[in-house]
């Protein structure tokens, strides 16, 4: 039996950008990215519809910023999730190969060599419709050296009940919210069953709120149920350490972190290297 990992390496950490343009202003995003980069991290997680702030004019703003910042960070690796029609928080998405082919072209135009991967960003269709053309598209871009991913997939079967899907090395994004309890284990088992070569990447590590919020806002914590309750009364450092331990215990392969400013990121960095004391 493999021994449990004790830390994440830097290539297993992705800077989340869901709050960019919403909770994180442009200057703070740039400072955050700069600090992240200086600490030796390279991977960014984003989506075509970030920020999900119900402002149609800001659909794609986070990628726009990344495109702008990119020239100062030449070897950044940006993983983009696509498919969501809007940034209104509605679940509808485009799940067809032509859409992904087109978005892939457009992202190459925007991010150039910085584009490191592309994933499905929500597929709420629980039917097992034929997705062979879509899977063929992902197999093709994987062959070209891009990472491929799935996030928010209602039916794993629709991606695995064919000859292509199970054999692909998906980055499978999984909700690690403290509000979720034992269902995380069963979901991980399901993912491993359907996609044996997938790497599991945890997100929503703080349920969209900062460690400070968790430590100081009892109402928010209450709303996030018992597992968060375990964190009650803990300081910010303890919370970060616990989140990382939890991800390691669950044998998650990679982690999307969502600091909203550079100093929060520095705490994360210490926690990830095991140097943050409770």
């Amino acid at each position, binding site marked *: 039996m493999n021994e449990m990992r004790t830390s994440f390496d830097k290539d297993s950490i992705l800077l989340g950008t869901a709050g960019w343009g919403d909770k994180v202003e442009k200057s703070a995003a740039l400072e955050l990215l700069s600090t992240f980069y200086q600490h030796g991290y390279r991977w960014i997680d984003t989506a*075509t*519809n970030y920020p999900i702030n119900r402002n*149609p004019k800001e*659909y*794609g703003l986070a990628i726009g910023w990344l495109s702008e910042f990119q020239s100062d960070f030449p070897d950044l690796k940006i993983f983009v999730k696509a498919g969501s*029609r*809007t*940034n209104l928080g509605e679940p509808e998405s*485009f799940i*067809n*190969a*032509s*859409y992904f*082919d*087109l*978005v892939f*072209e*457009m*992202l*190459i*135009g*925007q991010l*150039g060599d910085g584009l490191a991967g592309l994933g499905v960003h929500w597929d709420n269709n629980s039917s097992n419709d034929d997705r062979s*053309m879509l899977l063929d598209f992902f197999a093709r871009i994987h062959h070209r050296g891009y990472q491929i991913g799935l996030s928010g997939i209602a039916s794993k079967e629709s991606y695995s009940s064919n000859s292509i899907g199970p054999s692909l090395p998906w980055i499978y994004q999984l909700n690690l919210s403290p509000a979720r309890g034992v269902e995380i284990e069963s979901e991980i088992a399901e993912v491993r069953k359907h996609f044996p070569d997938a790497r599991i990447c945890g997100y929503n590590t703080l349920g969209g709120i900062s460690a400070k919020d968790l430590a100081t806002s009892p109402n928010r914590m209450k709303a996030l149920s018992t597992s968060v309750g375990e964190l009650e009364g803990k300081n910010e450092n303890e919370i970060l350490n616990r989140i990382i331990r939890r991800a390691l215990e669950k044998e998650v392969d990679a982690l999307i972190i969502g600091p909203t400013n550079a100093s929060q990121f520095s705490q994360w960095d210490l926690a990830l290297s095991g140097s943050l004391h409770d």
Partner: protein
Amino acid sequence: MTETFDYLIIGGGIFGAFAAQHLAPHASVALVEKEPSLLKRASKINQTRLHTGAHYLRAPRTATDARKHHDRFLREHQFAINQSFRHIYAIARQGSLTDARGFERFCQWLDIEATQMQDFELLDHNRVSDSYLVKEPAFDPFLLARHYAAKLEELDLRLHLSSQVVSAHRGDDAWLVQIENEKGERTSIAARTVINATYSNLNSISKIFHLPEARIKHEYSELLLAYIPSLADLAITIMDGPFLSITPYGMTGLHVLSSVVYTHHASTENSGQRMPCQIANGHCAVDAFDRCQPCKNKPESSQKFMLNQLRTFVPNIGSIFIHGQVETVKSTWAVEDYRDERQTSIRKLESGPDFYAVMSGKVSNIYELEYIFDAK
């Protein structure tokens, strides 16, 4: 070692792919494409409108060419055709080069059904005098690309992807051509007939073969791709002049916005100067284009102007979610702007060995290639 072929097709857009598909069962064929896959550039980056001809009031030859092949293309490419929307042609009150009667007469002449609509609510009727429902579908370029890639895979032909012609000269009964791939490896080919279907790069290939160049105008063009809930089953074209169209982009679910004024940023002719972006890029010649999409030197986007123009004519359009933009060089015959001519041309530039130059911006005109097949 030099391999001999009946045909060398240069350019793997829809014209090159269609020619290869038709010639390979009966002859030896090699196809050379600069990109790593087929139908990568102009065949993909366009409005995806399967033209009936209604769009070309000022170019009757272009209109009749489009009309002539529309039904056959539709029939033979059903798998890639989106007909699930209504296409509205609206006539601008000011600045239009036609009026309602002119549009109706033109549609009658082309034998296109154009049904007048009353008070189509999305449009600003202070700016638009009349609107018509015209049956004009969209094609999906990605599905076409898959189709032709699969077809060519089934056939016995030599496909050189990520490769380009670097030198050529005329032998006694064949063209002797050097091809270089992305690794710098060269292959020698002898071809009894060459078909140059490279669209924007047409003249750069003619030059390599020491043949006369055509007078072509090149325009750097930007198209916006958006999800627009209010246009779920609609396309709108504002006629006729410096206006715009917003049409479904194949079967992606997005719409493509193209504006006569703002889509084209810069232009050049083969006899003229390079566009500023070409000069900055360094790899572009006046008649040979690098890919615009990933180019760091492409002009600043006209997105906000295009959107402003759209909202002027379609004020009730509601939310627009921009998913991105695509850029490419569109090429046409260098004629006066008011003529709007985009006609397909297949010219035989040399005989024994033969050399054909194909120039077209309309996918359905692939059937014009049958002129070459018939000649053989």
